[in-house]
């Protein structure tokens, strides 16, 4: 059999290797494209915000006057929102994860909940907004207050916490459970005293990531309804509120009317990104610190 002519193969080899080289370069460029966009985005935002971020900007209340406007209200709103989202997702997310991993019998029902959770993760956030608007704001009569927004957001980020907690719980070695049962501990004692403490870093990482998602979400809150101008600071979970991303939204839209609003939006974005970056760094630190322990 003499089909493969080595001289032909060698002749073609140059072309193939060139193709490979070019492809490598193209793939490299494609990979850097995302990074480049990130750089441009950050550069744009930072340069637009130049001179607008100062103590007053952080500590002033909202105002129609760009020179006096500050984001203290949005910061308060974000904090209050987190005060609802954090415990709500923790309880719901970790509870669901414990149920699925430790109590549910492997079978149809468990996989039904599991499928349901991955589908929830794919539901667009505006749809959660509609849910929140219909159920929390209107049917329960809460109105567009922190509690309504927070509960909506908690449901939205629930899948993130559930999945992360499940993974963390699954990673706790069976022999630790056995050790505890062997001491005469009940199931719940074992979960509470052994499984959860061991899974805590993983759970925390998931919760932080979920919160950082919630901090950046805009659509559900816009759908629930946040006043375009809300100057007073929220003082509880039953107050109306605004948050950083919603403020960015209104300022971006209104920048067509008052050009400086674009700078305010950019300045708020910088603050938001700093917060998110810090949160993600913490999550990564926790993850790395506690990675391989058993």
């Amino acid at each position: 059999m003499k089909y493969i002519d080595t001289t032909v193969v060698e002749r073609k080899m140059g072309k193939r290797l060139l193709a490979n080289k070019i492809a490598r370069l193209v793939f490299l460029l494609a990979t850097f494209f995302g990074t480049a966009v990130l750089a441009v985005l950050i550069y744009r935002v930072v340069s637009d915000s130049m001179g607008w971020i100062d103590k007053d900007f952080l500590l002033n209340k909202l105002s129609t006057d760009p020179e006096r406007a500050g984001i203290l209200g949005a910061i308060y709103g974000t904090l209050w929102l987190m005060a609802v989202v954090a415990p709500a997702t923790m309880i719901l997310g970790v509870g669901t994860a414990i149920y699925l991993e430790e109590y549910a019998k492997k079978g149809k029902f468990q996989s039904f909940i599991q499928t349901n959770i991955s589908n929830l993760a794919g539901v667009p956030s505006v749809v959660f907004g509609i849910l929140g608007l219909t159920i929390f704001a209107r049917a329960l009569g809460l109105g567009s207050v922190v509690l309504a927004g927070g509960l909506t957001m908690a449901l939205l980020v629930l899948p993130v916490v559930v999945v992360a907690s499940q993974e963390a719980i699954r990673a706790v070695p069976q022999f630790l459970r056995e050790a505890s049962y062997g001491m005469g501990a009940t199931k719940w004692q074992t979960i509470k005293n052994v499984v959860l403490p061991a899974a805590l870093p993983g759970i925390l990482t998931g919760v932080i990531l979920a919160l950082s998602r919630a901090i950046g979400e805009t659509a559900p809150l816009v759908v629930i309804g946040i006043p375009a101008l809300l100057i007073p600071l929220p003082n509880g979970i039953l107050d109306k509120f605004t948050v950083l991303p919603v403020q960015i939204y209104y300022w971006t839209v209104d920048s067509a009317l008052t050009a400086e609003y674009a700078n305010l939006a950019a300045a708020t974005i910088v603050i938001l990104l700093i917060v998110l970056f810090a949160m993600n760094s913490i999550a990564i630190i926790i993850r790395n610190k506690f990675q391989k322990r058993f």
Partner: protein
Amino acid sequence: MDRTTGEKRLDISGLIEKKKKTASVGTIAEKMIPGILFGIAAISVLTTIGIVLTLLTETVLFFKEVPFLDFFTGTKLKPLGKDAVFGVLPLLTGTLLSTAIAMAVAIPIGLMTAVFLSEYASEKLRKILKPMLEILAGIPTIVYGFFAFTFVTPLLRSFIPGLEPTNILSPGIVMGIMIIPMVASLSEDAMSAVPNAMREGALALGATKLEVTWKVVVPAAISGIIASFVLGISRAIGETMIVAIASGSSKNFTFDVTQSMQTMTAYIVEVTGGEAAAGTTLYYSLYAVAMTLFVFTLIMNLVAQYVSRRFREEY
């Protein structure tokens, strides 16, 4: 048990025995906890049911006022005023066009990124690039919206003269950029799962890296890759803030991407922002559109799950 070891010892078992008589409260908690946890786990199911029910009940009311066929075949959407018309096609074309543009950006770049990371990049480079992508993935969509509106649109307008100040092209592109990390990381997972033995088999035949990638690794990982595309599409369909800011609210029925158009998501934001009063057709239309949106993304997610489950069984 009286142990006789001489030295004085604590009678632990006695202590435990004593405590046990008073510890019945604990047993009640023990019995209740599975129930409580079940209740908590059920909330995720309730949420889904809640979504479906809220959407469904109002959607049914909507279709009492606007015939089903008119809604899905209507090319005109004019939700306000006395001569309101509800045709969803303008929103569907808006959504589909923005999704198509986004995927035209995200699929090639995301896939090439995945190929680079899984097949070409050294371990060191990967360690730098992956966190970058993670950052890109973590940027809130409102920020992308701002970016599209204040940077990408003006930039595009400088060389596409006919481009309207709000249009579907610019948010589509930015949405694509936003989705790149998702496509890249899911596709990379799929490619990394292809056993090295396959790469070696091909390399040993004199294949170049490109040939290994294109003819062995990518085909072997294809279902995972496709799943990443489908999830990307689902994400694009559901994306809201970028289009709400940068694509305007014109309810044009057109395929011209330089025009201002509205997506289903942006319609929802507009209508709730105008705060439609309950009981009006406008209000119901919100739910009909949201239902359509929900069904679309649900189908996409199920498809993605189905495809990637098949993929996991392959080797």
